[in-house]
């Protein structure tokens, strides 16, 4: 009937239920479970692909993407500080959120590509891991300077061994070591159920997003504009980087989506510990209350259009 993917309806359903103050909830451990399945599946898919090609050929791409991960937060930090008139800690924290990535957004982009039968490089999952971490480090330095007090060992431990990175990396390695035929036996759980699991995840994300909406009013116009303009700008950078790396149209669209997405799990957790004076409501309102719904409802089709247009005109 409609051409909207059912997983998006689940998000809107959650959003509506949240706005109506329904008592609907995904039990917390089920939410953890569902997130975990998504992360492992995304990792596995990427890993299986890695098994098909020599790793060395990817090293240049990895380095470029990693460099972008360090640069992106630096681009928005001055905007937040001077234009947004936020204090240093908040500006740094939000910069880290937007420099990093959202796995949920990535999953929706993947679902979009597969439902539209668009090919893309499966090793994009690797970029999720690579983009997740650098922005956190940059954010901490922006907030605190290169102070000797920062317990970098702790920060590194927290960041690299956090659930998100670990499950993705675990999936990647297992997929890589097992190869396409090896993962066949576990594919009914991880691959066949993927979209259903994503639907449940988005249902809960809708509920959580709804709970952020009330703070939205409080922070007003700057945050709203920031939360929409930043992903659009970053998606252009991402698309150009993707073209530079000679990715396919689908690959370019996904890299644009990754750049456009803002973290709402790994980065908030890391900032809470390392930059406690930053207000978590502020950054979550932006990344979860504005950018996440913008990206999955409107952004991804735009980024795909952007990718095809650029691809057609530049190559």
């Amino acid at each position, binding site marked *: 009937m409609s051409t909207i993917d059912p997983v998006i309806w689940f998000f809107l359903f959650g959003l509506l239920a949240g706005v109506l103050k329904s008592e609907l909830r995904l039990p*917390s451990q089920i939410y*953890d479970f569902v997130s975990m399945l998504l992360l492992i599946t995304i990792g596995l898919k990427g890993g299986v692909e890695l098994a098909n090609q020599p790793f060395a050929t990817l090293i240049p791409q990895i380095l470029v993407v990693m460099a972008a991960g360090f640069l992106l937060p630096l681009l928005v930090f001055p905007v937040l500080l001077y234009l947004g008139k936020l204090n240093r800690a908040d500006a740094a924290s939000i910069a880290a959120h937007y420099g990093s990535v959202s796995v949920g957004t990535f999953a929706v982009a993947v679902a979009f590509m597969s439902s539209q039968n668009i090919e893309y490089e499966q090793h994009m999952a690797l970029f999720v891991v690579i983009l997740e971490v650098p922005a956190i480090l940059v954010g901490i330095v922006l907030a605190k300077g290169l102070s000797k007090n920062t317990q970098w060992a702790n920060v590194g431990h927290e960041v690299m061994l956090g659930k998100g990175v670990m499950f993705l990396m675990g999936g990647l390695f297992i997929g890589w070591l097992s190869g396409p035929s090896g993962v066949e036996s576990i594919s009914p759980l991880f691959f066949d159920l993927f979209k259903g699991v994503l639907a449940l995840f988005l249902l*809960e994300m809708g509920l*959580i997003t709804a*709970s952020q909406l009330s703070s939205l009013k409080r922070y007003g116009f700057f945050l709203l504009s920031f939360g929409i303009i930043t992903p659009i700008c970053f998606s252009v950078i991402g698309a150009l980087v993707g073209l530079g790396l000679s990715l396919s149209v689908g690959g370019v669209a996904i890299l644009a989506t990754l750049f456009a997405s803002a973290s709402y799990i790994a980065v908030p*957790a890391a900032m*809470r*510990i390392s930059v*406690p004076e930053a207000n978590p409501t502020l950054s*979550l309102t932006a990344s979860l209350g504005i950018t996440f719904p913008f990206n999955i409802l409107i952004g991804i089709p735009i980024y795909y259009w952007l990718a095809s247009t650029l691809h057609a005109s530049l190559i």
Partner: protein
Amino acid sequence: MTDNNATLITIITEAALETTLIKDIEELGAPGYSISNARGKGNRGLRDAAWEANSNIRIEVICSDIVASKISEHLEQKYYQNYAMVCFSAEVNVLRPKKFN
């Protein structure tokens, strides 16, 4: 019941602090601790445990009043300003008081 006193200090705070806080508490001399999950509301708004960033934990430590003071001072200095946190203490009778002093 042997009439032996100890102090029970209870901390309700953000789940994200669990690891750090436990380390601190043990370094300050707590002989043990217990934790359960919680949700709630306070100065820093609603924390309804819908997801991890929004969950609380409830830590209980039975210890001497000296250690209890140390813990509450430490919390006040290091965490009170930036984290959702409340902390209260009371005298309790304990079995085997030596365990906690």
